[in-house]
């Protein structure tokens, strides 16, 4: 799946006002949608971090069955309207098991965010380093890295990821997901970084550093890399929703994390048969997923917008 497009990425700015962090903050505050996006993300992160606290407060564990909340004679349909929403279960219960949906959603957020952030970190690191080397060094290194990126981008990645995850041994699924997402994600970042590095390599300040006797490494990491933080940040932000969606997609297709660990994709997958009988069960994790992805996209979009 295409995660990011080059067209969404701004080219390196010739002159950038202030430090990337300040600049970021300024741009976001100027954009109402982006402010909302950041707020939503912050809330989600807070929710994920505070998952144990939240479930302690509501007194619901994500794995505990509540037979009293469902009707076995009706196939385990939650008792009461709206998917069994009640004071005890503010977002209803899971059909057939009676597990608390709120508890599962907040724990699922933890997983979704952790996996996608780690995958982003991995892909960004690999993509940045290799893209930088390819774009700056050119020649042989560029050829090898370029071919590698071509190769990875020619993989029907979703099919391959599913197949890989389905044969993967039953170890740490979370880390495996991160690895697989990162492995197929980095070329998209690498390609953009490569292009930017190529553009920067021709800039005179790079020549100036060389004339001053700077080493290749110093040029790459002291001169060029700081100029790429902006685009890299944007690419990374824009790739997070892709990873969230892909992780959920993989869980949806049954090759994600293992139960009873709750994950949004898995919740949606298990809600599919229930969509007619208990639409609320399907809508709750679905909306959380949509809102999360949208929030990251909005923020990435705001960051990427050229003024």
């Amino acid at each position, binding site marked *: *799946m*295409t995660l990011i*497009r080059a*067209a*969404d990425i701004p080219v390196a700015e010739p002159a950038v006002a202030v430090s990337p962090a300040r600049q970021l903050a300024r741009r976001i505050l100027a954009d109402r*949608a982006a402010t909302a996006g950041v707020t939503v993300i912050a809330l989600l992160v807070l929710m994920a971090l505070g998952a144990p606290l939240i479930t302690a407060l509501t007194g619901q564990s994500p794995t505990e069955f509540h037979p009293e909340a469902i009707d076995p004679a009706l196939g385990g349909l939650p008792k009461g309207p709206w998917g069994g929403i009640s004071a005890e279960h503010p977002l209803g219960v899971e059909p057939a098991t009676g597990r608390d949906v709120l508890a599962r959603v907040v724990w699922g957020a933890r997983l979704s965010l952790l996996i996608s952030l780690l995958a982003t970190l991995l892909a960004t690191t690999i993509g940045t380093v290799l893209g930088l080397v390819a774009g700056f060094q050119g020649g042989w290194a560029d050829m090898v890295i370029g071919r590698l990126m*071509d*190769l990875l*981008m*020619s*993989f*029907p*990645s*979703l*099919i*391959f990821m*599913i*197949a*890989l995850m*389905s*044969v993967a*041994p039953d170890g740490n699924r979370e880390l495996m997901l991160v690895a697989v997402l990162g492995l197929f994600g980095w070329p998209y970042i690498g390609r953009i970084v490569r292009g930017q590095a190529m553009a920067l390599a021709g800039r005179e300040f790079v020549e100036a550093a060389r004339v001053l006797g700077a080493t290749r490494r110093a040029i790459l990491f002291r001169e060029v890399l700081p100029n790429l933080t902006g685009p890299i940040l944007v690419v990374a932000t824009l790739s997070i*929703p892709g990873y969230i*969606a892909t992780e*959920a*997609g993989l869980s*949806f*297709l*049954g*090759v994600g994390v293992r139960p009873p660990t709750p994950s949004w994709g898995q919740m*949606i997958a298990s809600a*599919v048969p229930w*969509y*007619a009988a208990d*639409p609320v069960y*399907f809508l709750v994790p*679905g909306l959380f*997923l*949509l809102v999360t*992805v*949208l929030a990251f*996209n*909005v923020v990435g*979009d705001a960051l990427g917008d050229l003024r």
Partner: protein
Amino acid sequence: MIVYLLKRLGAAAAILLVICALTFTIFYIAPDDPAQKACGKACTPERIEQIRGQLGLDTPIPEQFASYVRGIFAGRTYGTGPTAVECPFPCLGFSFQTNVPVQELLVSRLPVSASIAVGAAVLWLLVGVGAGVLAALRKGSWWDRTAMGAALGGISLPIYLTALVLQYLLVVVFEVLPYPRAVGLLEDPAGWFASMLMPWIALAALYAGMYARLTRTELIGALNQNFVRTARAKGLPERTVVRRHALRPTLTPIVTVFGMDLGALLGGALITESVFGLPGVGKLAADAINSSDQPVILGVTLFAAAFIVFANVIVDLLYAVLDPRIRLGTS
């Protein structure tokens, strides 16, 4: 140019070969033993060994790989004697579970996938490019902001979410559409359309958003070009300026991106087909993965990769054809 094309095809074939080798290795060193699965409920170790021989799994992996690749070009025969099965060119392997050459499965599934892909592509091009052009021309307007917001929403919608919401609303609640089923376009055009509509929308929502944004960005960029200013200075009507001078350069990236997306669409079709239960290539892949039918997984992966790789070759050529600077080279 011919030499270039040949070289490019050569590189494409090399990439496919590497993908093939990687996929092959991963699946054949996987814990699932096809022989054991074929052995069924009542199985003994001796029988497993026999089956391994029958399926050609007793030779070393490189040798198996070589026969696989040879089979693609020359076809091959599975087993020997009266139970031998012909797998003609281009043999992508032989499904252990359905006893059918993989390419036959692919061919029988292709119409459904093609229906979904082509219809969705038409839809997202119409909607996405249309919305993008209007947004670029009315940059900053109410329409622009709404369309771009919607585009962002479309991009953020996971396919299965769109698919299920559509199905819930259109089929269960309002009953305006039937459950999608695999109907041939020629057998029953109306049924085909009714069945395909939801998959199209689900798939197109994502891409339409991306194309709207792409079109907008590119068109705004083109409108800021000096040659557009020249066109205006000539006194051309604004419509001509936009259509002839701004849209033409905008189309080049769209067409090339479109080529690549179409190539990579099989991946997107996988979820769509799974959700709607349509027997296309994506569903074939999903089922094969679920039942660990390695030859089918391998075949579909290779097929999809070939699609992507050749789409890329075509895109490169298209790029050259569309852009005179590349077509003619710089003097």
